[in-house]
Structure formats: C-alpha cells, structure tokens
C-alpha cells in the first residue's frame, strides 16, 4: 500500500478523536469544568496504568463481539442493528444449556455447549433477519430493530415467569449456573475470557472477509447485490451464512455475559452492549481489526464515566455527551478519506475508490 494512503488511514482517525476531545473540552469548559483536568482524569481512569486499563478492557470485551453482528452483514451491504436481541437470545440459550447440563458433565463441556448454544441462538435470531431480507425483501434494519424489542420481551417474560428461580426474590432471575461452570478471569488480570473470545473472533472475521473466497464473494456481492446475482454468486446462501455468523458473535457475547459476569439471566443482560456494538462497527469502517481498537476507545470512554462524576462533579449523563461527540466526529471523519489533498498520491488522479464500490455512481460523477 502506498505510504500516503497508509498515513491517511492513521492520521484521519487520530485527528478525529483529538477533534472530538477538543469539542468535549469546550463542552466541559462551557459547563464550568476545567477541560485539562478532565482530560487528565480521563487518561488516568482509562489508560493511565495497567490497573485502570483493565477497566477499559473489561468494558471493551463485549463490544468487540457485539460489533461483529453489525460489521459482517455490512460487508454484504446489509445494515443490521439486531445486536441487542441476538445478545439476549444468546444469553438465554446459554443459561438454559448451562442449567440443563448442570454438573453432570465436566465444566469444559458445559462451557463449550453453552457457547455453542449462545452462538446458535444468536445466529438463528439474525439469520431470521437475513432470511426475511432475502426471501421476502423485508428491510433488514427495521426487522432487526423490531426483533430487539421482541427478544427483550421474551427475556423479561421468561425471567419473570417460566424460568424464574423462586429463590431470586427481589430481582427475578433464572437459577444460577454452578460456580464451577463459570468462565473465570484471564490469569494475572481481572479481565474475563470474553476479551480473548472477542479478539479471536475479530481476527477470524478479518481473515474470513479479506483472505477467503467466501469473503471475496461477500465483498463482491456487497458492492452490488444485483450484479452479484447476475454473476451467479449464491446471494441467498451468502446472506444467510453472514447473518448467522454475525448473530452468533453477538450470541457469544451474551453467553460470556452470562457465564463470566452475571451467572444467571436477568434484566441486567440488556444494558446496551448491542447499541454500542453498532457504533463500533461503523466507526471501525467495517474493518474487524479496527473494531478491536474502536472497542478499546469506547471501553476507555465508558471507564472514564465514573471519574467524571467523582472528581469533577459532572452528572452521570456527561459520559453520554462525551460518547456522542466522539462518535459523531469519528463517523464524519469517514467522509474525509480521499478528500484531503495532502494524502493524495498524485494530485491529478481521481480519489481512491472507497471499500464498498457503490459510491462512485452516476450521482457522484454528476456533481
């Protein structure tokens, strides 16, 4: 890859984050907090030391898996926002599996089957979206959004009624998993194994998309679905497979949340990792490896939410404003690729074509 283009893909995101920080600093000074002290606190709370960086890692872990649920279908040109629903269904399936197996089999097998159950349930949940899209032309964004609400209703219903453990008195939950079946922390840290799953899943996704014929077909079909169909690509099979894989990543995130954090399914399963994952996927420009970095960034933002309240007297909503600003700027920065003269290889050449090959359509040339 040409040097300037590499430089571009490094400089633009960094500049975007710095600009976002600048805007947030302005916001802070507007509401009466010292922006430099705020920056120092954010750094200290999110990345300052290994101890606090683990806080960031813990919060980043579920986002990596969840982001793949949006990221993979996006390579096929589908905008799916059903992460929360797939995560919830994955968690429910995992806890059911874990409770069904109990301590009858070794914990390794229980954990493996829980992971498979979570991935299966999440995968099927999003595969439904893919199937509706392919066979009935139902808009995938809307159907996946609706399925989120339906999944959360199923969770509340099951946890409040049929699956409720009578001993979970004042916080309705399913029965707890056996202690031995819980996923522990990575040795020497307080970060649970979900982080490793997330990293592995992102790396696998990267190779799948960039280095395999399956990935090539996906990217080709993502460029132009109709042309892909004409060219004889199995669009239906691609759609269903990609959607299943996407959902299974979110389902695995649900399993990790159950098996490494909560130990039982309850309303805490639905705390917004899904929506965070959507933003991570887009901010990472649909690149699985970049999704790792963006997840860390978001994890850092979330980790700094506490110190903004404790040390600066800012209200709890500050972290939302912070997150919102950073994301808006990062999303905007995506449009700068190829527009800044400095990063162009030769001034008279056309701007490099962006990854999904559609934007240079008639309209773009006409302007």
């Amino acid at each position, binding site marked *: 890859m040409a040097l300037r283009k590499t430089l571009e893909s490094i400089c633009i995101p960094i500049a975007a984050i710095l600009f976002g920080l600048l805007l947030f600093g302005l916001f802070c000074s507007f509401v009466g907090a010292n922006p430099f002290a705020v920056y120092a606190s954010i750094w*200290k*709370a999110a990345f300052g030391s290994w*101890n*606090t960086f683990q*806080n960031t890692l*813990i*919060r980043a872990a579920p986002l990596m898996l969840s982001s793949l649920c949006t990221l993979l279908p996006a390579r096929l040109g589908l905008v799916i926002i059903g992460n929360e629903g797939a995560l919830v269904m994955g968690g429910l399936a995992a806890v059911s599996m874990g409770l069904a197996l109990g301590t009858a089999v070794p*914990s*390794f097998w229980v*954990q*493996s089957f829980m992971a498979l159950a979570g991935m299966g349930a999440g995968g099927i949940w999003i595969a439904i979206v893919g199937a509706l899209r392919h066979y009935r032309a139902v808009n995938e964004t809307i159907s996946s959004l609706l399925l989120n609400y339906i999944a959360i209703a199923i969770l*509340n*219903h099951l946890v*409040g*009624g049929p699956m*409720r453990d*009578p001993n979970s*008195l*004042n*916080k*309705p939950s399913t029965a707890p998993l056996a202690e031995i079946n819980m*996923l*522990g*922390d*990575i*040795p*020497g840290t307080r970060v*649970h*194994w979900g982080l490793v799953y997330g990293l592995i899943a992102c790396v696998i996704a990267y190779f799948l998309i960039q280095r395999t014929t399956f990935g090539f077909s996906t990217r080709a079909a993502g460029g132009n679905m109709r042309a892909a169909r004409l060219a004889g690509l199995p669009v239906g099979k691609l759609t269903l497979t990609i959607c299943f894989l996407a959902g299974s990543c979110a389902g695995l995130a649900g399993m990790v*949340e159950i098996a490494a*954090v*909560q*130990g039982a399914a*309850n*309303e*805490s399963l639905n*705390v*917004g990792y899904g929506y965070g994952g959507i933003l991570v996927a887009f901010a990472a420009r649909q690149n699985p490896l970049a999704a790792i970095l963006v997840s860390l960034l978001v994890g850092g933002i*979330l*980790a700094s939410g*506490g*110190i903004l*309240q*404790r040390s600066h007297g800012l*209200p*709890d*909503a500050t972290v939302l404003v912070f997150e919102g600003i950073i994301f808006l700027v990062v999303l905007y920065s995506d449009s700068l690729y190829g527009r800044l003269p400095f990063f162009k290889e030769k001034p008279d050449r056309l701007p490099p074509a962006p990854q999904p090959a559609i934007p240079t359509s008639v309209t773009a040339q006409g302007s």
Partner: protein
Amino acid sequence: MSQEKLFHLSRRQIVRGLLAATAFGVTTKFGTGCTASTSGQADAGANAGSGDGEQMTVGFIYVGPKDDYGYNQAHAEGAAGLTKALTWVKLVEEASVPETTAVTESMRSMIDIDGAKVLFPTSFGYFDPHILKMAQEYPDVQFFHCGGLYKEGTHPKNVGSYFGYIDEAQYIAGIVAGSTSKTGKLGFVAAKPIPQVLRNINSFTLGAKSVNPDVTTQVIFTGDWSLPLKEAEAANSMADQDVDVLTCHVDSPKVVMETAEKRGIFCSGYHANQSALAPKGYLTGAEWDWANIYTKLLTDIKSGKTLMSGDIPHLLRGGLKDGFCKVSDYGPAVSSDTKKAAEAAKAKFMDGSMVIYTGEIKDNKGNVVIPAGTSLKQQDPKLEEMNYLVEGVIGSIGS
C-alpha cells in the same frame, strides 16, 4: 478452554492465599484496637488528596440518576444528610451504574483511586455477584448493601445488609386510605411482583381492611421500575374504575401522584414526601429515612466498630421504631378521626406491640397463607419470600 480452567483454578488458589494473608493483616490490625481504623482512614484521606487526616471517604453507587424522585433519590438524600451531619465524611458518588462489570469497576475505582473504606452500593441487583466478588478481593473495606440479602456463613464478613420495614408505614398509609376512601376501592401501581413489592401491597391492604373490612385494592403491574407512560395509563384506568386512592411502588412515584391529582382523587406517596405534587389529594405516604441510618452507621464506624469484628450487625433492619422509615405528614383531606386511628397504630409500632401478619390471613385465591394463631414478626424470613396477595387485593402475580 480446559487450559483456561486450569490456569483459572491455580490462580484462584493464589488469590485465596493472598486473601488469607491480607485477612491476617487485617485481624492483627484490628487486634490493636480502634487506632488501627483511624490510621487506615488517614491514608485513605491522603489518597483522596485531602489535607485533613481525620476525613473518611465513603462511596455511594446508584443504579439510576440521583434525582429520580424515588428510590435513588432517597438514598442520595440519605448520603447528603450524612455529610451534613458528619463533616468528616468525604462523599464520592456515582450514578447510573448498571448491574454489570460496570459496578465492580466503580467500586474498585472508589477503593483504589479515592481511598474509600466504606461503600454503599445501593441497588438491589448489585449484591450477587458484584458486591460479593469485591468483598472477597478487598477484605478490609466494608460493603453495606440495601436489601437484606446477607447470609451468615456463606457471605464474606465485610458485607452487611440493611433494609427498612417500610411496609409498616404502608400499613398506616393503608389505614388512612381505607378510612378516607368513599368508594372503598384503592389502587396500587406496582413495578414487578417481587416479595418487597407484594409485601407493601399486602400491608397497605391489611391496614385499610383494619378500618374498613370491605375495602379492595386493585393492583396493576407495569413490568418495570420506570415506565412513566404505563404508570400514567395504569393510574388513569384505575381512576376510570372508581378507585379513589392511588399509591404505588415504582422507582419514581411522581407520575402516579400527579395523575391522581389531575383526576381529582386521593394519593398516598412512596419513597419520599410527594405532598408538593398533589397539594389537594395527598393523604400521607411511606418515606425512607436513610440519612438517619447512614449517620448512625458511620458514627459507629468512626468509633472503631466494624462489620468484620461483629460490632456492627450484618443484618441491620428495622421499621418505624428504629427510624428506617417514616410516615408523611397528613394531608388536608385526612379527617381527625382517621388521624387518631393512624396515630394509634403508629404508637403500637413504636412500642413494638403491633404485628401486621397475624393469622388467619388468606390470599386472594382463598388459601390460608398464615394460619390462625400464627403471627409472623417483621424479622421473619418467611415474609421475605412473600409470593401471594392477601384477600382484598384484586390482581395476580403471574408475569
């Protein structure tokens, strides 16, 4: 994954070893008397960057915003009252912390960065697994959890539970509601059919029935702690059914109180005093008085008492008598006879002679739940597992 498990187990052993070592350190520290805890506070204060060595950092964590006019606000006001009463308390707070790893990280930051030695993570769902996990990791920090979940022997020694029998105040509110209602129909907007909520509904109803045996309480479950639209809908639909006193157990009673006032019916508050929201129809209400409890606890801790040594009870519970809760001042619509009846019941609570759950009590399906001759005192664990609605309540607890 088998490898992971292996690592994990060996690590757990290491942690256990470390814990034992720290625990030993702690016990030896406490063996020397109360000076030890002040020295601990001194470096806590130093960590927090405060010049005053006598300051003690206390952390409060809330699951929602601090100003929700309800559960979280009641605790936040308790915390504010604490700092007002005891100037040496340095308060660190975090609001809107979900019941996930986020809360363990918040606790950890409060301990590691701010030097907190006493934590009050107030949401019910923080306890298992989050507080239990942190308590094992930080055996010299005291964790007080609102909810009454502590189990002797199974839970770490540095964890304590506190909760108030606010249903005593609900019983009195029921007396007021039952004798003020003209239609004999009371309404209860509830979040979820969990024991705490059921107990409030039942006590409210039993209070009302003690003055008017024919009274009924209609209950509507909204399904979640904060759904303003559903709460308003529930309040309105009950008003349509001729209910003329409304109360609730949701996170923020504001909507129910205002809707009742708009509909020209009476209401009875919860969590905090809401009389300002319904100047005409507010009868009374069941309020928490956490400032009182927090101040007592911290005064004890300052004097060297700890959970670990057993000087502070692990289960701290009480009702009106112990100052955990109180009854709002009566509104203008409450007659003097009603006030007298309510005050009489209150006096019985204060001298300890009142037992709400005295048999025979039937549930609303006709089954006897507390046989005649049995009386369950407030501390009775059976009441913590309540899973029925008493006779006179219209509603069911299916989800």
